[in-house]
């Protein structure tokens, strides 16, 4: 197998496609938390999950394409300053896909800690730093408003990824590991 193919092979193509579709559909699933205009987005947990399983390129494309398409299809507009940060989260989590060992069935406590550290940091970069700065540059919105929004988005995303994302990975890693490993007979 040549190097390029192993990076974005058939499985990655399909995972990106169907993963994006899933991300887009889940746009309509929102868990309200009592603060107006802010809700937990389970689709973020799915993005984190797919990035952790299939790697950074798949994560980046699902983030970009899924957010842009989901916005366009459901809201009729694309808020570009919030599309690009999504890719940062996908890339960061995807970058440690090998260390997380989800497919191999090795996603345990140590991996869960790594996963959560990476997601908290990358979400902070994405929503507290990049998204508000892009908002100010592109849309000239007031700084205090966009940073406030950014902090809420960050809190919501790390919460849902920490709970739902971690559980999904633990559960999937158990199934994937079991079905693919043969045991040696005594």
């Amino acid at each position: 197998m040549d190097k390029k193919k192993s990076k974005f092979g058939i499985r990655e193509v399909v995972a990106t496609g169907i993963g994006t579709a899933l991300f887009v559909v889940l746009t309509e699933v929102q868990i309200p938390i009592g603060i107006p205009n802010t809700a937990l987005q389970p689709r973020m947990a799915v993005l984190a999950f797919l990035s952790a399983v299939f790697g950074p390129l798949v994560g980046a494309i699902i983030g970009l394409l899924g957010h842009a398409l989901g916005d366009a299809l459901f809201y009729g507009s694309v808020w570009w300053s919030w599309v690009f940060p999504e890719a940062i989260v996908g890339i960061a989590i995807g970058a440690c896909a090998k260390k997380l060992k989800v497919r191999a069935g090795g996603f345990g406590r140590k991996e869960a800690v790594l996963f959560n550290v990476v997601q908290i940091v990358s979400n902070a970069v994405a929503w507290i730093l990049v998204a508000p700065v892009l908002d100010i540059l592109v849309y000239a919105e007031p700084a205090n408003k966009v940073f406030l929004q950014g902090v809420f988005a960050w809190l919501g995303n790390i919460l849902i990824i920490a709970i739902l994302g971690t559980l999904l990975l633990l559960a999937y890693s158990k199934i994937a590991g079991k079905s693919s490993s043969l045991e040696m007979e005594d």
Partner: protein
Amino acid sequence: MAATRMLSYVEKDTFVHHLSGLTKLIFFLAWCITSAMTYDTRILLVMIAVSLVLFVISKTQWKQIAGVFKFILLMMIINVIAIFLLSPYQGCEIYHSKTVLAPFFAGHDITAEELFYLFNVVIKYFTVAPSIFIFLVTTNPSEFASSMNLIGVPYTVSYAISIALRYIPDVQDDYHRIKNAQEARGIEMNAANAKLSERIRRTSAIIFPLLFSTMEEIDVVSNAMELRGFGKKKKRTWYARKKLTKADYISIAATLAFMVFALWFTYRDGSRFYNPFA
């Protein structure tokens, strides 16, 4: 079935539908970039006018977009109120003047500059929305994927986009089926009085089966594609590819010419804002 307010492609026999997906993609991107760069009220209004004309030409019906449009309006109202509450003098900073129209409450006087700024925020949003409506309701997804490949996106990525568009309705069906099944089992999804942890638990009753069936689907589809030898060659042909016609070239040229003009017009005095107060 549950009402969805999603936009989708509808086949029609109009000038806009006959254009290549590539042309519409270029128009859409040019529109997004121009609208992101400029804050010139006159340019934004011209862009809205052009979009409305395209709406009429493409025979887009109000009911195709009504649901989404109302939702945007609601979002915009909330956004405008949030900006006003948090930053009532943003407009004054931008236009370097302050004309108080009416006192409101302490530190929140209504100024002409702020109203004009908020008006710009709203129309800026509405310049992009119609171009997305037109793009989504007039572009065939398969043809769109081949268009992406035409402008140099690797065909593996184009194919991923094609799969995404192809699978959205399928995944949506799965989602509704699982949701209905869980509700039949007594898990109420829309309970307003449930605790946050309870809400997350109920949502995961949908997400778990949905994600795992999706993972299986990924395995099945990638095995099928592997058997058919996908990805073996450097290039592939597209069933839905359209050749660019004269109308495409003219549309692309006109779009790019407008973009260049709009950016020149906006930045010629060194500021991206049109200032009627100066």
